[in-house]
């Protein structure tokens, strides 16, 4: 039983590298991306620092400044996601093709035994294409997704492709109440 599981881990390591490699070719190495990324990171850090210092300040000019910075950051973030979009489509297609190939190889095969019974909305995934109703049987797709979740993110972080904490924090705030809080 080791062979199937180890093979899946290996597959997901390969696809993670493939995905990152593809993104590197299409996005990370381009000048536009690098420029935008440094810009976003610089602005996020600046904004964070400014917010820390003037957090409770009621000064109108400070608020205006923060607001303007936020707007600038928002625009840059949007440009950054647009640049990334191109590779997302490419990797999306490549991965769908690869996944359907692996799916057909492992079709109906129990690749592992789960030490727990998954909750009902995960059972659809963990028991996909498997016969019988023993929910501790694990399908290829469930193990593959779990592997990818841990491996891909760690590889991104190792290679330094993951967005910095300051940027993702400020970026996440765009959809929250932050942008409008001074209005």
């Amino acid at each position, binding site marked *: *039983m*080791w062979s199937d599981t180890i093979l899946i881990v290996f597959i997901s390591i390969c696809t993670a590298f493939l995905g990152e490699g593809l993104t590197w070719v299409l996005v990370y190495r381009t000048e536009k991306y690098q420029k935008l990324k440094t810009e976003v990171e610089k602005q996020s850090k600046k904004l964070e620092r400014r917010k820390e210092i003037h957090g409770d300040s009621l000064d109108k000019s400070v608020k205006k400044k923060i607001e303007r910075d936020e707007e600038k950051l928002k625009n840059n973030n949007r440009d950054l996601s647009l640049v990334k979009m191109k590779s997302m489509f490419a990797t999306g297609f490549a991965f769908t093709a690869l996944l359907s190939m692996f799916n057909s190889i492992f079709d109906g095969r129990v690749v592992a035994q*789960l*030490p*727990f019974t998954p909750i009902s909305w995960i059972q659809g995934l963990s028991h996909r294409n498997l016969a019988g109703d023993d929910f501790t049987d*694990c399908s290829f797709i469930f193990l593959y997704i779990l592997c990818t979740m841990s491996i891909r993110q760690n590889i991104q972080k190792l290679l*330094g492709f993951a967005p910095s904490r300051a940027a993702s924090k400020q970026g996440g705030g765009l959809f929250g109440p932050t942008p409008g809080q001074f209005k």
Partner: protein
Amino acid sequence: MATKTSTIERNANGSVKSAPLSDICSRALTAKSEWDKDEFLDVIYWSRQVFGIILGIIWGIIPLKGFLGLVLFAGISCGVVYLYAINFQMVDEEAYGGAWELVKEGFMTSFAGFLVTWIIFYTGLHYDTIMAAKTTT
């Protein structure tokens, strides 16, 4: 465990940070060290990944089963990080946006890593026993 953590941290911090790994490791193992915010979060992130994999292997060897294994992992993982950061390193949790930010740093990734190793070791080591138990029931 300390040596394992260090090999991974080298890669992690080597590419992003200028501080040498040996320095980061010795600070990570010394109580009340001085930390840069990102540096400390990186230490937590990578130790957590290694910790998750080690727990997964242990759970698989025992073998622990059911919901208990999941709850125990979540509890131990969060508890250890919290105690390490607040009681051992004595960091100011407010500077990191509250204890929650520290506790959730890298949690999902380590959880996925934990599940993978748990499932692989559980299946690999106990396959015959599991199958025998299934056929008798």
